[in-house]
């Protein structure tokens, strides 16, 4: 977060996502704030249900009802976009923010050729002629590494393998050069051998096209290789956000620490993996104070009653009372 006069590309402020249910309102994402600079790759990690995907969907305005943004603001290049009318937001989608979903096998409409899906997207957002859009589609397919794009463009999704389809999906997300790509677990559904290729491709293309990436994943390895910064989410809240080196090598929040400990390392093959005791609470059962307190190895009295806010520590921001400098710690830890 270098200080500059320009607003960051994406700015999320105090985002709160709620699901009204018969038994009261569930808060799925609570008071989440972060920003993404131009060209930056922000990794967002956390367990299933931590609110990563919901955060991504709310930025692009595709939260599925009954989920709704109940508070906070989202700015794209200084313009507020969370309250845009539907038609205005539609024009933002695809043109300014692209999205890549998890499962390439189901992301493409089976009844249209990949070329017509590309051309359709390009022509929705630009004034390009049919033939110019067709040429651009061929170029894009070549760019995402699909061999003989001139032939493949007329083929249908079922004629592509999973990895190839994800390449097409990436081409679709990037086809009108959006400034931000939200990639929601783009490699989870793929073979391990293909995952690295797709991540490399995403990284390279976004750099070439000058697009920033919000990379949602639970694969810390992918984050370590790809991201500039990492945001760690837990139970709908941000636990820690900071430069990737800091977060991975020097995790401060006890939850991040636990996450890092649970990754196998080749160097210590015999060591038993560390595991965080317990499971993430359900949305109906989030405890008072810090949401992580029932599982935290360093919990103390204050964690049970007061909720920690994000506070700067070194170059990161942590929401944990262990790093609260305004007040002497009471009680013990460990």
């Amino acid at each position, binding site marked *: 977060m270098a200080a500059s006069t320009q607003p960051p590309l994406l700015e999320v402020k105090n985002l709160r996502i709620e699901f009204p249910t018969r038994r009261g309102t569930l808060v799925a994402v609570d008071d989440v704030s972060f920003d993404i600079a131009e060209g930056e790759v922000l990794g967002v990690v956390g367990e299933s249900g931590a609110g990563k995907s919901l955060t991504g969907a709310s930025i692009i305005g595709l939260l599925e009802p009954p989920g709704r943004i109940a508070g906070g603001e989202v700015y794209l290049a200084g313009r507020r976009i969370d309250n845009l009318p539907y038609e205005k937001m539609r024009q933002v989608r695809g043109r300014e923010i692209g999205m890549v979903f998890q499962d390439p096998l189901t992301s493409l409409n089976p009844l249209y050729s990949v070329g017509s899906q590309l051309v359709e997207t390009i022509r929705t957002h630009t004034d390009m002629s049919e033939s110019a859009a067709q040429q651009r589609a061929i170029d894009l397919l070549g760019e995402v590494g699909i061999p003989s794009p001139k032939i493949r463009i007329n083929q249908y999704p079922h004629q592509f*393998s999973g990895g190839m389809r994800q390449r097409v999906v990436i081409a679709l997300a990037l086809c009108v050069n959006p400034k931000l790509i939200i990639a929601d677990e783009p490699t989870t559904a793929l073979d391990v051998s293909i995952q690295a290729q797709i991540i490399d491709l995403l990284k390279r293309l976004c750099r070439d096209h000058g697009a920033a990436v919000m990379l949602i994943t639970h694969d810390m390895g992918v984050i370590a290789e790809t991201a500039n910064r990492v945001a760690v989410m837990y139970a709908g809240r941000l636990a820690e956000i900071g430069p990737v080196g800091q977060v991975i090598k020097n995790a401060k929040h006890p939850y991040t620490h636990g996450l890092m400990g649970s990754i196998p390392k080749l160097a210590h093959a015999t060591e038993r993996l560390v595991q965080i005791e317990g499971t993430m609470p359900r949305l109906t059962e989030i405890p008072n104070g810090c949401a992580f307190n029932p599982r935290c190895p360093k919990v103390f009295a204050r964690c049970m009653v007061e909720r920690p806010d994000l506070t700067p520590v070194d170059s990161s921001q942590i929401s944990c009372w262990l790093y609260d400098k305004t007040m002497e710690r009471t009680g013990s830890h460990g």
Partner: protein
Amino acid sequence: MLAFIVQRLFQAIVVMFVVALISFTMFQFVGDPVNNMVGQEATTEQRDALRERLGLNDTIPVQFAHYVMNAVQGEFGLSYRMGKPVQELIAERMPATMELVAVSALMALLIGVPMGVYTGLHRNSWLSRGFLTISLVGISLPTFVIGILMILAFGVWLGWLPTFGRGGVVDLGVWKTSLMTAQGWSHIIMPATTLALFQLTLIMRLVRAEMLEVLRTDYIKFARARGLRDRAINYGHALKNTLVPVITIMGLQIGSLLAFSIITETVFAWPGMGLLFLQGIQFVDIPVMSSYLVLMALFFVIINLTVDLLYYAVDPRLRSEHVGAGH
């Protein structure tokens, strides 16, 4: 593609052969037609002469061979009741039924599909709920009740529409149509509506269910994330994906429209094939019955073949020669 068509054609021939066999056996089991045809005072010689003329003295396989040979050439023998060739009777009646079925099928499609799309897209609007409630009536009321109620309302009380028969017929040489005059339309509108109502509600509910299903899929979400216009998403991406099941059901339904037009034709005294068939049953007019059976089977076979070909047009997964490394 060609192999597929050939294979389907072969299947169709087998089906038609079996149906021909069944309709042929009717001749063997349903009474002696000669008694119905000749008067009380006919002599044995006259009976035998007729028997000989009708070919009833040949062995059964020979009769069947004759039957198939004639049927292939479009000859189904003489009607016992009318003493006229059955194909002539059918040719007279077929335009009426075909027009009735075509008009009601078009009504069902052109009204049912948009209603289904609307109720799928606006699930909770009052109009959708209204459509769904009315469609329950369409599904649960028997056809003849609807027909009679319509006659009562529009024919008797309001006096807007004629209550029976076919009018305003224009002879085009091979085909007599009632679709070219206002009078013809005033006659066809009630029976066609009656016949269409069930199909319409069925199609509406099917399209609605399919739309709800398709709108939840990932490719629709991705289409939204690409910023496509709603019209493109709803009608281009979603509706096209609902078409395969709709085509299937519509094909089956056109078949049953033909078959069930019997009831509607009776209620409205519509001079179609259904009426001919019913009269055929009353008089044990077996050539009429058996040829009706064969003709209906032929229609079903043709419709199914068309449906299969339409699948090819709609779904590229069926027409590709080599299958990629999918699931």
